[in-house]
């Protein structure tokens, strides 16, 4: 019921011209192994897309291609109408300079499975590092950081070091760090897989709030219940291809593809 309420509360964008994220015929090889084998995907502004699939199906690689942590071997990714990592010129895609990719990434937040907080920096320093590097005045960055910390339920922990926090708290700091750049899109790479079971809830609830606030998100997760509740679209990957996608109600309850059925039977 609350899922329906959350979905209803989400602002419906008025007849948008283009999806925020457009992925077309994306291919990626690791050596001879084809990890992504022609992915086509649209993510609309304000929508939550959950990527499901067995391990090795390419979910994480797909996510990492969206902010160019992995360079695709074919196809393209477009975010807000901007080609990611490349520039088109006379029939060629020229790879962008590191600095230009850096600028593109600043509008795409990413949260990792292993948190990857900077261990030698306090919580506050972790959060303001990106904005300060991008030229935001330090004082202003601190004000934003403090707001974000209370938003993820960690008010007052500014001076702590990551190792002094629990896994769930660290992941919430990582979410605040990603939000500090005021991204238009958030990527979550198995944000709860490294957590003890009793800490999963607090992180999911922060992500749930974020979804309710209208943030566009792509989430890789194994939490089927969470996917059912929060996702607008569930995409099922297998062997580097999308084998099924659609609203959670249909994909999760009556999957038509054999592999999707087997996966869900094993997970549920």
């Amino acid at each position, binding site marked *: 019921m609350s899922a329906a309420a959350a979905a209803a509360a989400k602002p419906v964008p008025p007849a948008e011209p283009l999806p925020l994220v457009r992925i077309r015929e994306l291919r990626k090889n690791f050596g001879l192994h084809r990890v992504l084998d022609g992915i086509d995907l649209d993510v609309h502004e304000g929508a939550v897309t959950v990527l499901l699939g067995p391990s090795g199906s390419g979910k994480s690689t797909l996510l990492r291609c969206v902010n160019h942590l992995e360079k695709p071997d074919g196809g393209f990714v477009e975010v807000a109408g901007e080609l990611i990592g490349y520039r088109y010129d006379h029939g060629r895609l020229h790879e962008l300079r590191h600095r230009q990719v850096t600028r593109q990434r600043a509008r795409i937040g990413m949260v990792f499975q292993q948190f990857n907080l900077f261990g030698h920096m306090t919580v506050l320093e972790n959060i303001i590092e*990106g904005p300060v590097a991008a030229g935001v005045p330090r004082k202003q960055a601190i004000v934003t950081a403090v707001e974000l910390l209370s938003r993820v339920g960690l008010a007052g922990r500014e001076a702590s070091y990551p190792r002094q926090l629990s896994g769930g708290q660290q992941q919430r700091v990582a979410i605040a760090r990603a939000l500090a750049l005021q991204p238009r899109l958030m990527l979550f790479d198995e944000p709860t897989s490294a957590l003890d079971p009793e800490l999963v809830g607090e992180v999911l609830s922060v992500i749930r709030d974020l979804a309710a606030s209208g943030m566009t998100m792509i989430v890789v997760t194994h939490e089927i219940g969470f996917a059912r509740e929060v996702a607008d679209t569930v995409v099922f990957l297998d062997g580097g291809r999308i084998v099924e996608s659609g609203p959670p109600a249909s994909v999760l309850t009556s999957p038509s593809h054999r592999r999707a059925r087997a996966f869900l039977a094993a997970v549920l």
Partner: protein
Amino acid sequence: MPDAHPPAADGQAGQPAAGGGDAPPQDRGLPTGGPLTRRDEDSRLLAARLVAARHPGQWVSAAVVLVLFAMLVHTVITNARFQWRVVAEYFFYGSIMRGLVLTLWMTVAVMACGFLLGIGLAAMRLSSNPVLRTLSFVYVWLVRSVPPLVQLLFWYEIASLYPQLSLGIPFGHEFVTVGTAHLFTGVLAAFAGLTVDTAAFSAEIVRGGILSVERGQSEAAEAIGLGRRRIFWRIVLPQAMPAIVPATGNLLIGLLKATSIVSVIAVADLLYSVQLIYQQNFLIMPLLMVATLWYIILTTVLSIGQYFIERYYARGRRRDLGPGRGLWQIAVGNLPVFGRIRHDLAGLA
């Protein structure tokens, strides 16, 4: 293997078996719950005091070592041929002080330049440019293969290879020309030789430190839009420091003592100043003791400095250090005069 293929019901092992009929534990006749068993000895055992195991061997070995140490101290003090009065007399002697100063600034200058060069070499070695990578490898290989003394002599005699050095366009016009022999005096030769050597060893230390920082750190830094340089200096290098500092402390102390080899090219460092004196008055042992004591003092100071630098870079590494303490606070917190902080002591254990 036999376990993997139980007959027939393999495919349905999950649901029906669990729901079906596994006997609950109490059916196996084992007691569950109920009052705890009690025996008469229990209260005596609970009241007894704990006595640690004794280690008589530790006492014996400690006593032996202490006696040997006392003998050593005794002979050093009582043997008149150490001539401690002479040692005291020359301890702050003018030329020795000048030698000490030269040793000190040579160590500092070589370490600073060598280490910066080493960071550069390590960055080259880890870069994606194969030319830079190979160059860095060859440099480290070559320099580590040649003894520092040989390098020193090489730089000292470089005028015989290149009598003149000039600044200009490669293969083209030359703007400035100087005689190499004028440029490479003993001091500069010593500085160049030791710096080249230190750079090679620092490069390997820094490279090892950088490799110890997990890949996720730079990925996270890239994801929040940091540039390459910022990632290296602000994210990777500070976290490599805990691995770099101990080895570098070793290198620095080694360098402090290695500067004494410049005495072979007549650079008046601490050792050479001492040698100049004892070659005239033949008070060899006491004057060598002067140099030795100064080296010990300097090494001690460096070791203490290293300890505090290690503590500084350990910030965020341990749960017990508390938030946001800088180098100075750690140093003050550890001086007995200022009163030690409890968790500092805990950290030492």
